[in-house]
């Protein structure tokens, strides 16, 4: 009877390993996709920018008599801000944000920079998240349990990054509560994994 039971347990463990192996592969594909997309966007932007530069002149700066008008410093400053935010799809947020309109110039710059950093950090965090998930699934695939020291370290990394992202989001233009909820979910997951690791260690030491 005991032998049979052990056999069933073994097969279920193998099934679990197989299942998590599939999850790991899916995550690896998503990670690859996430890493390729920005490179593709940059390449396309360079090609398009190059093509536009070759064919036409900057329409905004051309005055009726054909002389290219010099843009003032303020306009230039606004240009880089709005252009970058336009790429990040946040131009409307900038125009509609009351705090931003009221804020002094130095604070405005800080807000824009922190928003840009938050957007980039968010994307990097997404890649790290998917990478960490792939590693966690890989750990289950090889060791048969998700509660390992390596996984705790991975979750710690994601937790710290999520806190940084939340702080950046709070300082930026686009304030949302998703960042805070994300931090709380990750911190809850981290404590669950730490407790799981403690129990796993106890179970492993029990013969």
């Amino acid at each position, binding site marked *: 009877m*005991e032998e049979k039971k052990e056999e069933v347990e073994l097969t279920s463990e193998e099934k679990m390993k197989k299942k998590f192996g599939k999850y790991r592969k899916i995550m690896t594909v998503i990670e690859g996709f996430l890493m390729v997309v920005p490179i593709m966007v940059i390449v396309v932007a360079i090609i398009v920018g190059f093509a536009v530069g070759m064919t036409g002149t900057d329409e905004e700066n051309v005055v009726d008599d054909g002389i290219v008008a010099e843009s003032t410093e303020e306009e230039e400053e606004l240009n880089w801000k709005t252009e970058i935010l336009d790429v990040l799809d946040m131009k409307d947020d900038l125009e509609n944000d009351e705090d931003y309109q009221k804020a002094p110039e130095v604070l405005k710059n800080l807000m824009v920079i922190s928003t840009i950093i938050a957007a980039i950090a968010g994307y990097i965090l997404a890649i790290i998240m998917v990478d960490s998930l792939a590693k966690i699934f890989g750990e289950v695939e090889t060791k048969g349990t998700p509660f390992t020291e390596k996984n705790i370290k991975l979750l710690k990394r994601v937790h710290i990054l999520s806190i940084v992202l939340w702080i950046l989001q709070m300082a930026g233009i686009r304030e949302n509560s998703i960042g805070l909820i994300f931090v709380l979910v990750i911190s809850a997951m981290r404590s669950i994994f730490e407790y799981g690791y403690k129990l796993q260690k106890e179970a492993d030491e*029990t013969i």
Partner: protein
Amino acid sequence: MAIILRLDRMMADRKISLNELSEKVGVANVNLSKLKNGKVSAIRFSTLEAICKTLNCQPGDILEYKDDE
């Protein structure tokens, strides 16, 4: 630790090797070795029962309490 395992003594008394005991008890050789060297923090009743059954002894013959102080 205050609890000391005397498995090696019992095994010597019964003249049984580690491999033989691990086969009869159904516990991996590595784990039994850890048990013998006292490198475990807990033991299951089922394991203790199997060892006692194989060695024909009492749990008290394997486990011993020694005051740390």
